[in-house]
C-alpha cells in the first residue's frame, strides 16, 4: 500500500494520485516539504525520522540558529564535575549529512500560517506543507521581582544551555567555604521537573568535594512538593547533612524580591544578604515563535492533539517538546524525543501515505544525587480522554541498595549516549 501510493506520487500517475488522496496542494510540487523549527530533542529527532524514514520522498529543512548543540540534560553533571563541557556539546553535521536534511543556520522570526511559510531573521522565507515547531522554553524574566534579563549575569538561571551553564559552574567554583547559595525554584509547569533538585545535589557534591562543607544552599520553592522529593531529601540528609535547606511556600511565606547588585533575596520569612550565588530559575512559557504565531493558549504553552502531536489550532503544524501541553508527560528531552517520533510518523502518513500506528509515548528521567547514587522516574503514555495520559508509571524507592543506584547511574550514562546518537546520528 505504502509503496503503491508513493509510486503514484511521481511520474504520469501524479494527477490520479492527487485526486485519490484529495490533497492537491501537497502533490502539486515535486516533493512535499517539511520545515522544523528548533534543533533540540524534539526538532532534531523529528527532522531525522521524517528524512530517514521517507528515504528522500520528503524534503526536510531544519532551522536552528546555533552552530552546536549543548544538551540541557546532563548539564547538572557538568556542574557537579561528573562530565566535561565537551561531552555535552554536539555538532549537527552528522544529522544533516547522514539523513539528507537541509540545515539552515538562522533564527525563525515569524510563521505566516496563511501562506504556510516560515520567515527567517536573514529574510529568507521557507514554504512548508507541514511545519514542526519545537522551540523549547522562554523564561519569564518578570516572574521574579527585581530580576530581569539584564540581571542574568549577576544571578544566573542556567535553565537554557550554553553560556549560562558555563557561568553557573564558574560562579559555583568561586563560592567561598561558608558562603550562602540561594536557589529560586520555578513554579509548575517547567522544563525538567527533577532538574532543580538534581542541581542542588550536584552543587552540594561539588562544594563538599572542594572541602567547602560549611556552605549552605537555601531553596526557595513556590511549590508545596516536587519531583522525587522523598528520594532527594533522603540523599541530602545522607550525603550533605546541614548543607541543604529546602523551604516550601508555607515556610518562606512567598518570595518578595531579589536584588542582583547586592546578592539579596527577600522572602516573607527571612532576608538572605550577600549571597555568594543566587540561581534564579524563573517561571517558563513556550518559545517566542510559538506564542507569536498564535499556537499557545493563555497558559503560555501550546495545546496539541494527543493522538498525533498536531497543534490544536493549525492542522499543518505540529508542536513538540517543552513548548507543548503534553498532559501527564513531563517536559524532558526524553519526552520530546518520544513525541517527535509520533509526529514524524503522522507527518509521513499525511504526506507520503506511510503506514501509521496508534501513538504511544515513553519517558524516563534519571537524577544523580551523589557519586553512583542515581534515581529514576518514568512512565508509558497514550492518548486518552483528550490528553496524553499515563498508562503506567514508576519511580525509584527510598532505601534502594547501593548496587541498584549504581546500576541506575550506568543506565543514565547509557541513555545519554543513546538519545544523542538517536537525535543527531
Amino acid at each position, binding site marked *: 500500500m505504502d509503496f503503491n501510493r508513493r509510486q503514484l506520487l511521481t511520474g504520469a500517475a501524479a494527477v490520479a494520485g492527487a485526486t485519490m488522496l484529495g490533497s492537491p496542494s501537497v502533490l502539486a510540487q515535486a516533493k512535499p516539504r517539511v520545515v522544523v523549527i528548533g534543533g533540540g530533542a524534539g526538532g532534531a529527532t523529528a527532522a531525522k525520522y521524517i528524512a530517514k524514514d521517507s528515504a528522500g520522498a520528503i524534503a526536510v529543512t531544519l532551522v536552528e540558529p546555533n552552530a552546536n548543540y549543548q544538551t540541557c540534560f546532563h548539564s547538572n553533571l557538568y556542574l557537579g564535575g561528573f562530565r566535561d563541557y565537551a561531552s555535552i556539546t554536539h555538532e549537527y553535521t552528522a544529522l544533516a549529512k547522514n539523513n539528507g536534511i537541509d540545515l539552515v543556520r538562522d533564527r525563525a522570526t515569524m510563521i505566516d500560517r496563511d501562506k504556510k511559510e516560515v520567515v527567517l531573521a536573514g529574510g529568507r522565507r521557507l514554504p512548508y506543507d507541514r511545519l514542526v515547531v519545537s522551540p523549547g522554553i522562554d523564561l519569564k524574566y518578570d516572574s521574579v521581582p527585581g530580576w530581569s534579563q539584564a540581571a542574568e549575569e549577576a544571578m544566573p538561571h542556567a535553565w537554557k544551555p550554553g553560556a549560562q551553564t558555563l557561568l553557573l559552574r564558574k560562579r559555583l567554583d568561586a563560592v567561598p567555604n561558608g558562603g550562602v547559595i540561594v536557589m529560586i525554584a520555578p513554579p509548575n509547569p517547567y522544563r525538567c521537573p527533577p532538574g532543580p533538585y538534581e542541581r542542588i545535589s550536584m552543587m552540594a557534591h561539588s562544594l563538599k568535594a572542594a572541602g567547602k562543607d560549611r556552605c549552605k544552599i537555601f531553596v526557595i520553592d513556590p511549590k508545596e512538593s516536587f519531583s522525587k522529593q522523598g528520594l532527594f531529601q533522603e540523599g541530602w540528609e545522607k550525603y550533605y547533612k546541614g548543607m541543604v535547606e529546602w523551604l516550601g511556600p508555607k515556610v518562606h511565606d512567598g518570595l518578595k524580591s531579589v536584588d542582583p547588585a547586592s546578592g539579596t533575596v527577600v522572602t516573607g520569612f527571612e532576608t538572605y544578604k550577600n549571597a555568594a550565588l543566587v540561581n534564579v530559575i524563573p517561571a517558563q512559557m513556550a518559545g517566542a515563535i510559538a506564542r507569536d504565531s498564535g499556537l499557545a493558549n493563555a497558559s503560555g504553552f501550546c495545546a496539541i492533539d494527543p493522538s498525533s502531536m498536531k497543534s490544536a489550532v493549525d492542522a499543518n503544524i505540529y508542536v513538540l517538546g517543552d513548548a507543548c501541553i503534553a498532559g501527564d508527560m513531563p517536559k524532558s528531552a*526524553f519526552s520530546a524525543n518520544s513525541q517527535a517520533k509520533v509526529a514524524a510518523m503522522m507527518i509521513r502518513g499525511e504526506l507520503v501515505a506511510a503506514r501509521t500506528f496508534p501513538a504511544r509515548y515513553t519517558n524516563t528521567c534519571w537524577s544523580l544525587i551523589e557519586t553512583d547514587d542515581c534515581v529514576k522516574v518514568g512512565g508509558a503514555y497514550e492518548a486518552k480522554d483528550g490528553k496524553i495520559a499515563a498508562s503506567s508509571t514508576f519511580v525509584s524507592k527510598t532505601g534502594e541498595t547501593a548496587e541498584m543506584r549504581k*546500576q541506575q547511574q550506568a543506565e543514565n550514562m547509557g541513555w545519554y549516549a543513546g538519545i544523542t546518537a538517536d537525535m543527531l546520528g
Partner: protein
Amino acid sequence: MTMSHLPAMSVSLLLASASTGAVAGDRELGEYLSAECVTCHQLSGRETGAVPRITGWPDEHFVAVMNAYKDKHRDNLIMQTIAGRLAADEIEALAAYFGALQSRSVVK
C-alpha cells in the same frame, strides 16, 4: 545481563530462519515500535553504560527476555513498564525488526 556471549554465528542462523520464521513478526510494526527502544539502545549495536545491545538477537530469545520483563521476572522498572504494554504480536514484531539488523561485535 548483556548479550555479548551470543556467538556471531547466531546472526546467520537468524537470517536463515527469518524466511521460515519460528517467530513471524510484522517488521514494519516492529520498526515503528523500535523508536521507543532506540532512545536508549543504539541501532549501531554500541553498548554504553548499562544499556545493552539489542540488535541481532535470535527472535525466540528476544521474545523470552521481553516476556520475562512483562511478567516482572526480570527486575528493571523501565523495561517492565515498556514490555508491560506490548502485546505478544508487538514483541514478535520487535524481535523480527531488531533481530534482522546486522549484528556486529560489541563496541564499548
